[in-house]
């Protein structure tokens, strides 16, 4: 299995290439426009890999996604959780909790982890050539190293998003406790953000990977005893909102065009 983490430092964002070298197929997770579709396409071509799918953990609010363009350029599906149906205004290929994709010996399994956003999904990766047990999880913005994704980013019409802040925090807590933390201790955690990103709180680590065991023991947000205290803790340790989050989210939802985004100076 090939796994590459691409870090875009100005936004402390991490995207991923996961591939099976035998099948010569790769998937890209959470590609960022600041690196651009060409970047990912060339990375795959250098390794002789064909991109067979583009996955996103959620509809991002802090950076412009190039998932749509990357998928279209390669004639492959753009995957988001089915909960995004009705939220996003463009066509995508919906996936559901537990749905698995196999590329050669690599298995990518969707783990629905709402909270940060209602459609948020993590991806659990297993290299079946080595073990039937999962190796690492791409947690998106649900679980960070030392922190969790903030539950308070909203945009536009409340009716688009039935989860209010309190409910989101509670949902976030449960997603981590009841789902992510049920993975074996040794499973590695690779997030969508780290360090200075404003998607998490002040405790987010600059280290862009961890393990389930370490986060269980030392993630301060997750050490809170219940959903309520978790919600309060996250609120108290929050950072300022990401720049242009409302406009960026609108673009990523397909509500505004790229030109409109540019005109707004993003």
């Amino acid at each position, binding site marked *: 299995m090939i796994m590459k983490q691409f870090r875009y430092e100005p936004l402390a964002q991490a995207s991923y290439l996961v591939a099976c070298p035998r099948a*010569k197929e790769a998937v890209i997770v959470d590609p960022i426009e600041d690196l651009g*579709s*060409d970047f990912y*396409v*060339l990375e795959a*071509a*250098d390794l*002789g890999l*064909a991109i067979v799918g583009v996955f996103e953990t959620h509809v991002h609010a802090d950076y412009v996604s190039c998932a749509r363009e990357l998928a279209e*350029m*390669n*004639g492959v599906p753009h995957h988001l959780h089915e909960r995004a149906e009705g939220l996003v205004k463009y066509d995508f290929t919906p996936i559901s909790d537990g749905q698995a994709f196999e590329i050669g010996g690599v298995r990518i399994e969707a783990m629905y982890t709402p909270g940060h956003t209602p459609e948020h999904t993590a991806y659990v990766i297993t290299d079946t050539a080595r073990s039937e047990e999962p190796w690492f999880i791409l947690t998106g913005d649900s679980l960070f190293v030392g922190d969790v994704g903030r539950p308070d980013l909203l945009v536009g019409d409340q009716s688009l998003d039935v989860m209010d802040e309190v409910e989101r925090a509670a949902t976030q807590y449960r997603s981590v406790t009841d789902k992510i933390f049920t993975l074996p201790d040794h499973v590695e955690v690779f997030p969508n953000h780290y360090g200075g990103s404003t998607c998490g709180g002040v405790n987010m680590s600059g280290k862009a990977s961890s393990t389930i065991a370490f986060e269980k023991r030392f993630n301060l947000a997750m050490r809170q005893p219940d959903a309520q205290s978790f919600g309060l803790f996250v609120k108290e340790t929050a950072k300022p909102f990401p720049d242009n989050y409302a406009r960026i989210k609108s673009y990523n939802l397909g509500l505004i065009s790229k030109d409109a985004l540019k005109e707004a100076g993003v």
Partner: protein
Amino acid sequence: MTPQEVREATQEGAVVLDMRPPKPFAKEHIPGAVNFQFNRADLAERAELSLPQDNDYVIHAEPDPIAKVAVKLLHEAGFTVVGFLEGGLKAWKAANLPVEELPLIDVDQLKDGLDGYQVVDTRERFEFKFGHIPHATLLEWTEPWAAFEAADDSKPLALVCGDQVRSSYVASVMQRAGKQTSLVFGGMVDWIERGYPVEKGVS
């Protein structure tokens, strides 16, 4: 370039360089296209070693951004590149233009039907000397464009190298020259892994 423009260019003698990996190339490609796999790290060097400088080339690489980078890299290496096929094979087929296949066989199939093939080894001389398929002929991958006098022209050619990158290049050149050619996917690595017989030396 549009598919029609590419077609016209080939009719005027331009050579289409198909830069996809061997497997998709073998499945279907523009008739007469030569397979030369893309990467950024050593494309220029490999081209300088084995691609004739005096051809006009048209790039077929997918998706388009790869083609653009390939055009640039080959230009910088001193090759004449006329353009690239926008939209790739999808655009070519949408224009109702024909495609060609390069038959693919694996080492097991080659072993079973060995008598029916003239095996052409496209590696370097010292690699061939170290171990080659019995009765194979050597045609180094840096020299395929010159007239090739096959040891036995009555049999179809089976092209082999270490894995299949160099042999795919030479196989496509042979096919372009009208020779009945198959590509042995997996090459000498698979042949030796299977424990199939190997001949040493250069006769």
